[in-house]
């Protein structure tokens, strides 16, 4: 016969130690014929104490012991009854997988995720193109107010940042070019380098990356929190298409504003190069402009700007789609926002590389 005599405070903060001892009791079959739990001297008794006691009693009972509780007060017996009603404590399930299986599983999941993602992006691209088609047939469908609003937010409001950064990069490029090219006595070609590099690649790439970080992420977070609060479902039930209401205005606004931003970025980059040329090479502004004109023709400029609408569409679509993929939790908004920025910068650079190959092939 086993007698447990409990005393003092049996509360959640104190049960840890007792629990160890109770678990160590060997309830092997037939070892204990009778077990008595005497709670006469217990001053406080809460659910966690009841949980561990009833678990212990259950294990003993399974081993063939007769269980008896003594000196229970009303609340204690109610509590133990309630736990008994809920049935025997279920073993807590543990999923332990080996390290290798875990790594392999993660890799498999990642591969599947990439393939699902690719299909998803293509599908979404199709949806957007279809929506653009509908809008071209009936331009009145376009939501002009959000369209203009997003042009202001994603375009106009980004101007100070883009101006400052491209001016600085232009200046740094010129300064580095001047120092390096001076070794070959070719420091006057600094202007050619800055002009071509900026107009063809850097101006637009910088702008696209800034916009992806600034507006792509905002699109995801905005649409994501609307999704979370069921606003998107509400729109659908009111007969409004989220594609028309939310996505198209954002995509079109970015498609219109990114080329303009890239144009401003080009100007500011050349200005930065000009300022450095004036101070480091003593080149007068008039001469600088002449040399820029010699170095670049229309196509040098066009090659940069042509890419802009494509990148804009990519950034906006990736951002909006990530927003729609948000599920119920706040964590998922953060995750999707990160994904959206990473993905759009990645895609911007890929698209830039593809265009570079294309323009080389056609010889501009």
């Amino acid at each position, binding site marked *: 016969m086993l007698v447990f005599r409990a005393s003092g405070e049996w*509360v*959640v*903060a104190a*049960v*840890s130690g007792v*629990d*160890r001892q109770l678990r160590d009791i060997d309830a092997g079959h037939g070892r204990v014929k009778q077990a008595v739990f005497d709670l006469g001297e217990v001053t406080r008794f*809460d*659910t*966690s104490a009841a*949980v*561990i006691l009833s*678990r212990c009693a259950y294990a003993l009972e399974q081993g063939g012991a007769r269980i008896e509780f003594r000196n229970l007060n009303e*609340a204690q017996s*109610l*509590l133990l009854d*309630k*736990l008994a009603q*809920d049935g025997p*404590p*279920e073993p*807590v*399930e543990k999923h332990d997988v080996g390290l290798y299986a875990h790594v392999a599983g993660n890799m498999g999941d990642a591969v599947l995720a990439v393939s699902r993602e690719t299909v998803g992006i293509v599908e979404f691209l199709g949806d957007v193109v279809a929506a653009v088609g509908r809008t071209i047939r009936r331009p009145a469908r376009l939501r002009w107010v959000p369209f203009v609003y997003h042009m202001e937010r994603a375009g106009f409001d980004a101007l100070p940042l883009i101006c400052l950064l491209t001016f600085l990069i232009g200046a740094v490029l010129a300064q580095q070019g001047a120092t390096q090219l001076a070794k070959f006595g070719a420091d006057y070609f600094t202007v050619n380098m800055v002009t071509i590099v900026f107009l063809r690649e850097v101006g637009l790439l910088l702008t696209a990356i800034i916009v992806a970080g600034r507006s792509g992420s905002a699109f995801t977070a905005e649409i994501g929190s609307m999704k979370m609060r069921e606003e998107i479902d509400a729109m659908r039930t009111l007969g409004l298409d989220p594609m028309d209401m939310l996505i198209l205005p954002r995509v079109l606004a970015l498609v219109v504003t990114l080329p303009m931003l890239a144009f401003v970025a080009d100007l500011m980059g050349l200005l930065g190069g000009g300022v450095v040329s004036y101070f480091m090479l003593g080149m007068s502004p008039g001469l600088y402009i002449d040399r820029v004109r010699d170095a670049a023709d229309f196509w040098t400029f066009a090659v940069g700007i042509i890419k802009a609408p494509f990148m804009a569409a990519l950034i906006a679509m990736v951002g909006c789609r990530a927003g729609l993929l948000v*599920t*119920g*939790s*706040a*964590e998922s908004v953060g995750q999707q926002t990160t994904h959206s920025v990473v993905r759009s910068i990645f895609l911007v650079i890929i698209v830039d590389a593809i265009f570079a190959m294309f323009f080389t092939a056609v010889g501009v």
Partner: protein
Amino acid sequence: MSAGTGDNIIEVEGLGTRFGDNVIHENLDLQVKRGEVIGIVGGSGTGKSVLLRTILGLKKPDQGRIRVFGEYLQDMPEAERRAYERRWGVLFQDGALFSALTVAQNVQVPYREHLHMEADLMDELAAAKIRMSGLPANACSLYPSELSGGMRKRAGLARALALDPEILFLDEPTAGLDPIGAAAFDELIGDLKRTLGLTVFMVTHDLDSLYAICDRIAVLAERQVILVGTVEDMLVSDHPWIHEYFHGPRARAALKES
């Protein structure tokens, strides 16, 4: 418990609350006795939830003082207050579960943060609380976004009960539950009160809950608690709002059942 508080576990003295020009409470007094279930009722915008938040210390009172467990918690240093805060549990309206954690992990948060406990025991206690709250055992590993509204409430209750609190604050616990679920919830609260000796402070609109489990009811109107008493006291009151509330068609139906 310090002298002079008697059996009152919560005492609100002369509470004043305003948002800009909008005065919500003015000189509001309320006493909650140890071991009772008190229901707070009142029309929309009478500051029921604000009162709850103020007692919990989530909002500073603009005027007046609040004593919980016989202490003025708002004047206490942070660390000391934490010890008192562990002695209450709160169920927010939509459960307010942490969305990045599973139900079981949500219930274990207080164990992890406040107690040194082994993982096995935490799992076991969490599972027991979750089942006490009326959720199936397989709900433990689900995330809040995978639960229905009613299940989220029950999971929130399980978390509120994790440390076996002395006071349980409930903000509209049965709103959004089906009648069977709501009745089961009432019964659960009643059970918990009897087995754990809980004091329950409940903001509610549910007449059935008021009849079924509340020992006393406090009515908030005109910036104050205009009446505190049992259901019988409410039924004989001739205040127009209270009369309307307890004699309306829904109230009659609830009365018939009880």
